[in-house]
């Protein structure tokens, strides 16, 4: 590993630093919004790369690698972050490493700086959070620090971006030096792994801290210097070890935010706000997406005609793209709120408050937000799990998210409950719905604890569970950072998970459309719309999907269902809400009356097994179907996003198999249990 800046290679500047040190803010200031986020090969660890904005006229690439605490990794993900800092798989060894250092907690952050300098890197130190340092009545001498560390030190104010120009001049000079000098610098990881060295390093750092940090007169504008403040600062300066205290305002606010009663109230109100935003604010936007794509789809089929090609474009391609984009509003809203909560410092507190109960089932306080989001939609929820640093806990959280009762299950539940309960008894219906939710939460807790027991085998990851989390000082969240983070996540969803969703929904379209793509129906005396509906019904009834339906009928029989319900379940993989419309098609609800639901309900009441008059939809089988939907992973998009976020097919395949098996077993128990007690 050697540093070699030649004239023809664009220099690479890596930005690293501890979490919460202002690393990403600096990266955003240098790159603008035009950065590419990429996964390291074979892992879910991400990095962002960009050219430095042209207005700064420094010709260099900047790399935002994940935040690290030390060069000695304590998890597989950290190991990747550290190793790629030394030798990036596609960009080589960085020529310069920029470390962001929170000046208000200098000693903790200098630890990594020294490891990097000792490893032979050309290091530029960027001091951040100077406002917090000033609030403590202290200041730092960047000149002295630079002399001691023999590396350039620059102050950057993350709010105004003041100091970025000085940083770039420094970097430019270093690059020119590197290009002209003949010496070849080599980089070797220097991070002794023993306690003695670690403690010695900290003692040296404390000496440095004492040299460079000094008390200031805060009331400069006043005529009289604030003697009390200076005396206070001097007293702490004489203490042994490091003398810095956490931000006072933060300590005070924490007494409320982490209060056993008020803290919990604030936490639940915040979570309620977040959840309702994802659930309700997104709904009209999702309708717009849905409506515009069905408008496009209708137009396309009118222009191209009701033939296989017209349908391929309208129902395959256009609806497929629509089914990718329909999740976008939820993703945007969730990540915007998450970004603001994280940047303000609240999210870390929330994780701390809720950690204990979740730790019992192998999860982490940070699992809460993704799990809660799962009740709106599994897609943004699984993406939100990337805030969980511990790999095992992240995988486990992703694993159980599809068990949360997402909003797409609601129309299915609504239909099936309406079948069970007469419309007058709305209250009983609501009660059943609540019971379904409680049942799904309880089952996911049980499943999580079982999977946790076998996490090594099942998830391919068994990190030690630990919870070490900095509670950063509260501050006004930076909207620009949250927005840029939101768009970056949305972009990744569209370009990484989008194609998988599109391919899978095309495959599903083929299964439900071919081979009998132009069925013959009795058209006499029927209206045009009715003929189209009859054709659609006939087509799906003779499709490949129906063959699969026939094939799995022996499995459906014990649940009291026939091949037609099987076909609907297969078609439902496109999205759970499709269940209702595919039931309509397969049970030939061609009467387009005013009230579709009651038409479908009566069709369901009259549906019998072929060549017999035994009813399919009874109280028992409908209850069984509800239970089936509680567990079954009936959603291709979830499979696609789980594949992307876990970095492989292992977990999504495991989810499909196990959740379908559990769904089947519990549906079987429900149907036959009810029948045993005489409820048919």
């Amino acid at each position, binding site marked *: 590993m050697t540093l070699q800046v030649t004239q023809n290679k664009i220099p690479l500047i890596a930005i690293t630093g501890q979490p919460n040190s202002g690393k990403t803010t600096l990266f955003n200031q240098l790159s603008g919004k035009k950065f590419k986020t990429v996964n390291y090969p074979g892992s879910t660890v991400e990095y962002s790369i960009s050219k430095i904005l042209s207005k700064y006229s420094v010709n260099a690439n900047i790399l935002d690698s994940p935040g690290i605490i030390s060069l000695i990794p304590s998890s597989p993900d950290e190991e990747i972050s550290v190793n790629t800092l030394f030798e990036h798989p596609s960009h080589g060894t960085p020529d310069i490493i920029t470390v962001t250092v929170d000046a*208000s*907690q200098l000693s*903790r952050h200098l630890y990594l700086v020294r490891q990097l300098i000792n490893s032979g890197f050309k290091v530029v130190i960027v001091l951040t959070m100077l406002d917090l340092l000033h609030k403590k009545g202290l200041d730092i001498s960047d000149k002295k620090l630079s002399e001691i560390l023999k590396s350039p030190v620059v102050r950057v104010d993350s709010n105004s971006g003041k100091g970025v120009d000085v940083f770039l001049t420094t970097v430019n000079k270093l690059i020119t030096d590197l290009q002209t000098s003949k010496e070849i610098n080599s980089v070797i990881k220097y991070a002794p792994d023993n*306690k003695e060295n670690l*403690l010695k390093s900290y003692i040296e750092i404390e000496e440095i801290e004492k040299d460079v940090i000094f008390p200031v007169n805060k009331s400069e504008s006043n005529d009289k210097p604030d003697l009390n403040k200076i005396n206070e600062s001097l007293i702490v300066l004489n203490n042994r*070890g490091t003398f810095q205290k956490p931000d006072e305002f933060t300590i005070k606010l924490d*007494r409320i935010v982490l209060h056993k009663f008020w803290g919990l109230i604030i936490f639940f109100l915040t979570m309620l706000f977040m959840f309702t935003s994802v659930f309700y604010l997104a709904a009209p936007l999702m309708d717009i997406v849905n409506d515009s794509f069905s408008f496009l789809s209708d137009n396309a089929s009118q222009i191209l005609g009701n033939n296989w090609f017209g349908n391929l474009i309208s129902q395959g391609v256009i609806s497929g793209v629509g089914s990718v984009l329909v999740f976008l509003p939820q993703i945007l809203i969730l990540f915007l709120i998450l970004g603001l909560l994280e940047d303000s410092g609240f999210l870390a507190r929330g994780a701390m408050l809720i*950690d204990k109960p979740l730790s019992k089932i192998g999860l982490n306080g940070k699992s809460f937000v993704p799990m809660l989001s799962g009740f709106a939609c599994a897609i943004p929820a699984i993406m939100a799990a990337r805030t969980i640093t511990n790999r095992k806990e992240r995988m486990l959280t992703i694993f159980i998210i599809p068990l949360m009762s997402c909003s797409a299950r609601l129309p299915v539940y609504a239909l099936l409950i309406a079948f069970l309960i007469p419309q007058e008894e709305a209250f009983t219906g609501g009660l059943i719905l609540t019971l379904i939710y409680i049942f799904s939460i309880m089952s996911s807790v049980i499943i999580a604890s079982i999977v946790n027991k076998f996490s090594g085998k099942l998830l391919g990851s068994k990190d030690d569970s630990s919870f070490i989390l900095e509670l950063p000082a509260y501050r006004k969240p930076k909207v620009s950072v949250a927005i840029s983070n939101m768009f970056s996540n949305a972009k990744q969803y569209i370009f990484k998970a989008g194609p998988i969703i599109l391919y899978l929904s095309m495959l599903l379209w083929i299964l439900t459309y071919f081979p009998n793509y132009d069925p013959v129906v009795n058209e006499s005396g029927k209206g045009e719309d009715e003929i189209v509906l009859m054709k659609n019904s006939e087509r799906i009834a003779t499709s490949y999907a129906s063959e699969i339906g026939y094939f799995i009928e022996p499995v459906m029989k014990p649940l009291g269902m026939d091949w037609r319900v099987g076909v609907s379940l297969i078609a439902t993989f496109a999205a759970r809400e499709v269940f209702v419309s595919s039931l309509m098609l397969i049970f030939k609800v061609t009467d387009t009356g005013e009230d579709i639901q009651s038409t479908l309900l009566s069709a369901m009441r009259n549906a019998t097994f072929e060549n017999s008059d035994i009813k399919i939809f009874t109280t028992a089988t409908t209850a069984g179907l509800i239970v089936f939907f509680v567990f079954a992973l009936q959603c291709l998009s979830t499979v696609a996003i789980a594949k992307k976020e876990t970095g492989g097919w292992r977990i999504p395949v495991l989810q499909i198999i196990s959740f379908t098996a559990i769904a089947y077993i519990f549906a079987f128990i429900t149907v036959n249990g009810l029948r045993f007690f005489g409820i048919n």
Partner: protein
Amino acid sequence: MNYNNSEDQMKTAAEMKIGEKAIIEDIDNEHPSSHRLMEIGFTPGQEIELLNKSIFNDPISFSIRGTIIAIRKNEASSIII
């Protein structure tokens, strides 16, 4: 049962009360998180203050080296004070 109430009985950060300050004596090397705890600044000689306890009294947050860090009680039990 140990009736010997001697002074050299070990106390850990997990047993601290809210608002209590202590100087770290040592870190238990046997604990899987011991190295990480030292790296983030929990080193012998350093003063810590227990600031808050979460519901169920776990995790707990400490003032350390100019910032606040929350750790589980299990991890705090490796910090000898």
